């Protein structure tokens, strides 16, 4: 266990090692694009060069960032530092980097097929990833905002990547305008919080809010409200979801996958950290708002999704609905709910990227065939693809024995433990409604035959096949044996930086080799009882 006190700038470099690695990879790609590419352009058909250099740099960069995140799990820092160094951040990094790794691998064929610029795609994706990691690591509202903006701006451009497709440009502009609007809300919320507490540092603000009589302050209430609105746009919670279907449909599908998983997960984790950990002492302030957000976000999109005829659009509504399930974990405001949200986010990332990958593969050149009608007979034309898609859809719907099912059970358990019976019932009922639209695709694939003139989707490449295959396997495997992953999620949550009154003494504790700023016995007892209550989950 190494301790960072950020006395020298070197500590920042080390504490932000994953971010530094990713930024350097992105800059390397840009430099190569500017200086090297020109020589070889024209002589070699680079578009068909599947393992392009950009792709390799991105893969190695993300892999190195994963290793760096693993290394960071042994480090610690004072609770009031600018950057979090805790299990929560490491778990978040794993979800985000893992999701990005899947997106990059699967997007490779798509980029070649649609003749999209690989250098820009990979560089912007890496920059977006840096933004996401900064967002989940930030312990200061200013850093949080800058991270969110970095992520958003990169994704705005990625959305408009297909420049000769008006849908893509339209989606990009829409996303940009709504996103700028959301950022303004968030920034105003931050300003009001600063006005109420006199600090942007989350740990200090949390202590100020709980200790002093700032609790009933109007500035504080308005600030937290604006914060929730800003994050609500980014995680696409109802009623801030209007942009989602259009943007998800218009964006190039790998970018949709990145938006539906990475962007949503990063904003969600940041929301989780700010609300349930830092403002966990004043739950009255935000719990009602989140409760209603969760209710609406579970009910509305599930009903709208029933009538969709485009698979991408349907998955967009499904992704909004999943934000609702995740918000249940926030509404419980318990460590069980936090762990449940993390676990579900991991499941959600794999199954969403996987299903969208199949969607863009089936869609064919120009991204045209994405209507539900186009899936007729897929089960017999491309049995492998269909089986994998079946697994992802079942997991999204929440059938046993998949990871999605365990995740929902986990969240359900957290909701019931916290006494949120109405939320729990809504979660079950809306999941049942969702079965219909997920299973409709399955029905089309297996029980209807393709029209005579339909062209069979081409066979996917080796990397694509292995990646979706392994993802599907992971979904089933984690559904059958979720024990270790549940333990990981619980460990990550119990090892998160909690704002404490005795910031200065916690420094000392850590410095003298003690494990955590809080009493270790209490922590282990807490996790022990949670594990007890999760035994039922683990028999699977």
């Amino acid at each position: 266990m190494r301790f960072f006190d950020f006395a020298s700038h070197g500590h920042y470099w080390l504490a932000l090692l994953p971010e530094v690695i990713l930024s350097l990879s992105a800059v390397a790609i840009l430099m190569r694009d500017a200086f090297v590419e020109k020589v070889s352009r024209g002589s070699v058909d680079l578009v068909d060069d599947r393992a392009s250099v950009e792709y390799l740099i991105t893969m190695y960069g993300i892999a190195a960032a994963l290793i760096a995140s693993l290394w960071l799990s042994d480090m610690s820092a004072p609770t009031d530092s600018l950057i979090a160094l805790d299990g929560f951040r490491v778990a978040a990094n794993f979800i985000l980097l893992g999701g990005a790794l899947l997106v990059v691998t699967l997007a490779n064929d798509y980029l070649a097929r649609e003749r999209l610029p690989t250098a820009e795609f990979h560089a912007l994706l890496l920059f977006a990833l840096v933004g996401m990691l900064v967002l989940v690591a930030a312990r200061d509202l200013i850093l949080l905002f800058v991270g969110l903006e970095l992520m958003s701006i990169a994704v705005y451009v990625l959305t408009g990547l297909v420049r000769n497709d008006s849908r893509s440009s339209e989606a990009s502009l829409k996303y940009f305008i709504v996103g700028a609007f959301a950022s303004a809300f968030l920034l105003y919320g931050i300003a009001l919080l600063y006005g109420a507490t006199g600090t942007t540092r989350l740990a200090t603000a949390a202590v100020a809010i709980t200790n002093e009589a700032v609790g009933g302050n109007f500035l504080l209430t308005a600030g937290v409200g604006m914060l929730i609105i800003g994050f609500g746009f980014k995680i696409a919670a109802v009623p801030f979801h209007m942009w989602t279907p259009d943007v998800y449909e218009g964006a190039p599908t790998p970018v949709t996958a990145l938006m539906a998983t990475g962007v949503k997960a990063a904003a969600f984790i940041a929301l989780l950290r700010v609300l349930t950990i830092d403002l966990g002492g004043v739950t009255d302030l935000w719990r009602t708002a989140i409760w209603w957000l969760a209710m609406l976000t579970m009910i509305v999109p599930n009903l709208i999704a029933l009538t969709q005829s485009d698979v991408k659009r349907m998955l967009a509504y499904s992704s909004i609905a999943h934000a609702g399930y995740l918000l249940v974990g926030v509404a419980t405001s318990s460590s069980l709910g936090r762990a449940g949200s993390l676990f579900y986010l991991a499941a959600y990332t794999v199954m969403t990227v996987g299903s969208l990958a199949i969607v863009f593969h089936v869609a064919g050149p120009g991204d045209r065939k994405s209507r539900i009608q186009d899936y007729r007979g897929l089960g017999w034309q491309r049995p492998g693809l269909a089986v994998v898609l079946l697994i992802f859809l079942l997991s999204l719907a929440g059938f046993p024995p998949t990871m999605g099912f365990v995740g929902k059970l986990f969240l359900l358990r957290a909701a019931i433990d916290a006494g949120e019976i109405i939320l729990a019932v809504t979660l079950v009922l809306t999941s049942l409604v969702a079965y219909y639209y997920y299973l409709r695709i399955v029905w089309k694939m297996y029980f209807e035959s393709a029209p005579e003139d339909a062209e069979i989707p081409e066979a996917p490449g080796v990397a694509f096949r292995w990646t979706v295959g392994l993802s599907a396997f992971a979904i089933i495997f984690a559904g059958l044996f979720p024990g270790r992953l549940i333990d990981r999620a619980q460990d990550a949550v119990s090892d998160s930086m909690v704002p404490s009154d005795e910031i200065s003494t916690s420094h000392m504790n850590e410095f003298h080799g003690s494990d955590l700023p809080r009493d270790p016995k209490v922590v282990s007892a807490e996790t022990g009882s949670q594990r007890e209550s999760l035994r039922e989950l683990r028999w699977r």
Partner: protein
Amino acid sequence: MSENFLFQAFSASAILAAVIMVTRKNPVTAVIFLVVVFFSVSGMFLMLDAHYVAAINVILYGGAIMVLFLFVIMLLNLGHTKQKDLKGPMGGLVGGTIAVAFLGTLTQFFIGGSEFEGMSRQGDVQLPLGLEQQGVIAPIARPLFTDYIIVLEVTGILLLTAIVGAIFLTKKRSV
């Protein structure tokens, strides 16, 4: 005229100009009112002893960014709608009042600078410690390059991303 009054006058003119700005149909007029907003906000910064921020606000937003806005609007030929925005009696009255009030207060502030200097130390506003010794830039620069150095670095990456994105989205298609 107390300093408090000036602050409120600047606030009022900022809010008024902002409202006028978003209700205009002619983009050029809207941009001009946005400039008024920026100047009023700069005035508020001045009253808070944040001279540096006030100056930067005028130079960057009031100057550079607004000029770019106007350029874009004029290049896109958006400014030629037949809307009578400022020409009506109400528009002229409101605009004129704001302009006079604003210019008046600002002139008074700059001319009577010595008069306000003594007053600004008496109000509720507490100056950050050591502002007198360090001047107004050091309290911004020091945290920026010590406590918030990471934020500055990430902002650098953010700007790089924005540049790459802007160039990518606007460059001529090579294929």
